[in-house]
């Protein structure tokens, strides 16, 4: 079965969705990512959807699920690169992607992840002293 590759970069996992996903592929990505977060103890997940031409309620739910599951596993999720037409459509569809952090591009997304991970370790550091 085809799979969406997940890359590990330092303490982050990177996913670029470049195919029009059927529902089972989206579910497989959700499972794979959750497993990878726990295996690699990743602190952040960056999902690039810049080539996705639509996000319907199923894919939207998958993104929300990934964000929720990763949060429980102590990792932040940032979705980057959503096309403006996709954003307009999502809102009219009635989907606001609750709990999903977004950034305009990969650079901004990585910044956001680094910042939020640093922020957490700072808090942890304060607690130690």
């Amino acid at each position, binding site marked *: 079965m085809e799979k969406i590759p997940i890359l590990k970069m330092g303490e982050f996992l990177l996913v670029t969705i470049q195919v029009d996903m*059927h*529902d089972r592929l989206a579910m497989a990505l959700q499972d794979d990512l959750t497993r990878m977060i726990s295996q690699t103890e990743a602190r952040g997940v960056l999902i690039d959807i810049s080539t996705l*031409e*639509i996000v*319907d*309620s199923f894919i939207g739910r998958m993104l929300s699920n990934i964000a929720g599951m990763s949060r429980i596993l102590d990792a932040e999720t940032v979705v980057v690169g959503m*096309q403006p037409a996709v954003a*307009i459509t999502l809102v009219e*569809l*009635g989907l606001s992607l609750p709990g999903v952090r977004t950034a305009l591009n990969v650079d901004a997304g990585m910044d956001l992840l680094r910042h939020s991970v640093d922020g957490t370790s700072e808090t942890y550091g304060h607690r130690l002293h």
Partner: protein
Amino acid sequence: MAIVSTETVPVRTEPDVVAVRRRVREVAAQLGLSLVDQTKVITAASELARNTIIYGGGGSMQVETLNGPRTGLRLTFEDKGPGIPDIELALRDGFTTGSGLGLGLGGSKRLVNEFEIFSRPGEGTRITITRWK
């Protein structure tokens, strides 16, 4: 109003949803719909195709291109499934009998210019959506 072309696409299995999206994108682009309008009608088609499979047990999508006085795209999703007993309830956001978000029907209605639903318990469901250029 003239129907310029008609074709029927099967909507039976999960990969068919991807094929539906691809075909609707091609036709919408050919008609010269704006990118936002293309995205809206593809998303609506994706929701309705999934409903056809999950709730209708599979069916078909008819694609019609319309011309004069207005150019538009009309899609009809039809199944011979159990039908929808309470259409008003089914259109309400958040209502679902499945495991989804309950946005498919009401959401796709908001994404198109015209939305028609015909359903009778035991006979099936037919939903027609139109997006004008």
